[in-house]
């Protein structure tokens, strides 16, 4: 059942999504930043990527619970090693997909 104010809801969602994406770009891009802040920003990608991935690999459900027996995790280990060895994005994506497909067949 879709409410009458659907359009307003998605406009509202759009605004609150866009503003946090927009503000830092406009306020930080043309500014001289202190050294510690630049160092901090430089570490953010590694931190965020890790914070995004690890919970996907070893937790599940709502509320989340630890689950170390997920195919996502088993597949991640060889995928990770392949990426370290080859540093190839294309290869890693293909290998990851293949192994996950294989895991689906076997498990």
């Amino acid at each position: 059942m879709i409410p009458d104010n659907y359009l307003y809801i998605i406009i509202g969602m759009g605004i609150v999504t866009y503003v946090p994406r927009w503000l830092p770009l406009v306020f930080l891009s043309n500014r001289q930043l202190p050294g510690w802040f630049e160092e901090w920003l430089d570490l953010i990608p590694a931190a965020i990527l890790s914070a995004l991935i690890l919970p996907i690999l070893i937790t599940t459900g709502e509320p989340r619970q630890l689950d170390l027996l997920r195919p996502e995790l088993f597949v991640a280990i060889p995928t990770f090693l392949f990426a370290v060895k080859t540093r190839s994005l294309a290869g890693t994506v293909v290998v990851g997909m293949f192994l996950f497909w294989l895991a689906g067949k076997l498990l």
Partner: protein
Amino acid sequence: MNTDRDTTPWGEILKDGMIGAWPICLGYLAIGLAFGVIAQKAGLSPLEIGFMSVLVYAGSAQFIAVSMLSAGAGFVPIVLTTFTVNLRHLLMSSSLSASLRNLGTGPLSLFAYGVTDESFALNSAKFRENRWDWRRALVLNHTANLAWIVCTVAGGFGGEFIPAGALGIDYALIAMFICLLIFQIREMLYVVVATIAGLLAVVLSLLIPGNSYIVIASVIAAALGVVFKRGRFFSRAEGPS
């Protein structure tokens, strides 16, 4: 670094940006179709799905919004939830701002629209290469956005065009993130920061509902990283690395 005057023709820029976006497009094929199918089951028409994908353009927030809509939630709870779910992009845009120097508000505003987990991860890696610049990154963002819109709307026609689990396509984005994480690791300090962030994220995700664990874990881990760096805990004592 961006050069002052980039004279590369737009044709080449378009090609680079669009090709660069392929892992995201592959991943969106799976997630976008899945979203479309779920949204259609919740009663949204393909047009309404398309509007949401254009106006909001945020994967997990859209999934949550649809489930809230089916549960009868109203404007305020849905918009507030979207805000908290997408707040992590504040951090991503802050980080990207370091690579988007000397641009006007126009290009920055266009760019901001396309900042997602996926485009952030990919552009952050590519900005470290010399050939990448804001125009290519912008094309990459909007290519990914187009893929998202097309796939979500296609799913909205009820078509499960790709059977669940086919070809391991559900794993495309996870594999991409794994590889892009490795691209970010340039010395021991990054390993330490990534390890802290990952473990902290897992612990926090078990303790607090929602996805605020991403922002909290990243902010703390990167801050510790600065402390370690300034205290020279994990890097060689002298010389540029």
